[in-house]
């Protein structure tokens, strides 16, 4: 490599990344400074965390969850990790390895749940047994188990690594369908209510590209390969669409999502309260639910009784793609 001409906007050292939405390039140190400030602003703006909170970070082995765990620890928060082994073949084996190495190298407390060992099913089997798309079965399982672990462990708040791209893509989908209930609930802080723990998303002001860059300059190894059974899902196509807009008009994703939070979400606040409605206790597990048996217990019942489905069977459905 020769002739690296661009300089960091802050210190004029050689830049490692250009961020068109900030109309600037940054060296490794000032990229980190930008990320720290953006996370701190999100936490402050939405009153996400207190200095003495006990935090449970939902970690997957991917860049976002490891980055947010790293950033919280660096900022002085008390944050433990929870990893759920989803049973998605080598992908899960590799993901778990990255999480364990991250925690071990830093002396951090990590709890691990294995779906197959602890609950008698895995995500490929759950998807097949329930007829849900894999991401739906995965999301339902993770939400429930993170909630339960936070309540059982006495944690004040669950942190997830959802970033600006994630939230903008979900907002895009909800807007395409004008799904008012989902739009009303798409907030970066969900307060502790009705037996659910508080949940927050400190990375909403940071893009996937910035989080991947954070991991690279901090020396954090993470699973780069995409989940083999997520490929081709709608969420990913929304991200690609938004990135094509971003390429022509840098800053569009931030304007779309952060503008929604600032100007539209307050108008939907009443809808959110109405949508919450009355909740019952699940007849099986006692968790809050709108019906008699919660969605997780229904999934568990069908999945644990189903013959295990190898992940390879999920890959033969023509969903693979190159990027």
């Amino acid at each position, binding site marked *: 490599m*020769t002739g690296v001409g661009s300089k960091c906007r802050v210190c004029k050292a050689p830049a*490692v990344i250009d961020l068109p939405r900030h109309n600037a390039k940054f060296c490794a140190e000032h990229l980190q400074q930008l990320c720290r400030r953006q996370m701190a602003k999100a936490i402050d703006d939405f009153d996400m965390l207190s200095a003495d909170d006990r935090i449970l970070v939902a970690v997957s082995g991917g860049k976002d969850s490891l980055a947010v765990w790293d950033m919280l620890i660096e900022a002085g928060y008390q944050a433990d990790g929870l990893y759920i082994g989803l049973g998605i073949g080598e992908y899960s084996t590799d993901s778990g390895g990255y999480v364990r190495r991250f925690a071990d190298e830093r002396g951090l407390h990590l709890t691990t749940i294995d779906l197959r060992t602890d609950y008698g099913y895995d995500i490929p089997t759950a998807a097949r047994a329930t007829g849900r798309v894999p991401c739906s079965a995965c999301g339902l399982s993770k939400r429930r188990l993170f909630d339960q672990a936070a309540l059982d462990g006495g944690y004040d708040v669950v942190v997830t690594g959802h970033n600006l791209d994630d939230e903008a893509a979900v907002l895009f989908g909800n807007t395409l369908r004008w799904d008012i209930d989902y739009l009303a609930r798409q907030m970066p802080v969900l307060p502790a209510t009705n037996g659910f723990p508080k949940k927050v998303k400190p990375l909403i002001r940071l893009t996937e590209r910035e989080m991947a*860059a954070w991991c690279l300059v901090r020396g954090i190894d993470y699973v780069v390969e*995409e989940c083999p*059974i997520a490929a081709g899902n709608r969420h*990913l196509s929304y991200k690609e669409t938004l990135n094509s807009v971003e390429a022509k008009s840098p800053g569009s994703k931030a304007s779309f999502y952060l503008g929604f939070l600032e100007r539209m979400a307050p108008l939907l606040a009443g809808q959110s309260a109405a949508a919450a409605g009355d909740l019952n206790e699940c007849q099986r597990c006692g968790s809050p639910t709108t019906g008699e048996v919660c969605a997780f217990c229904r999934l568990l019942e069908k999945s644990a009784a189903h013959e295990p489905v190898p992940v390879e069977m999920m890959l033969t459905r023509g969903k693979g793609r190159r*990027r």
Partner: protein
Amino acid sequence: MKVLLRNPRREIEVDGGRSVDRLLEELGLDREAHLVICNGTLVPGDARLDDGDTIEVRPVISGGAD
């Protein structure tokens, strides 16, 4: 120069003497969705890549959603 691509993991050989942005454009890859690492170091879009460099083009889009 050797260029490592991901998802799926594969390696291709590309002539040097081009910028990072040009490489991504020629590969048909979105800059917003990728980072480029040259000889182990993250590099910006105008960095010049040469023959003999080892390049990784790393996608950054991840995650499913229900």
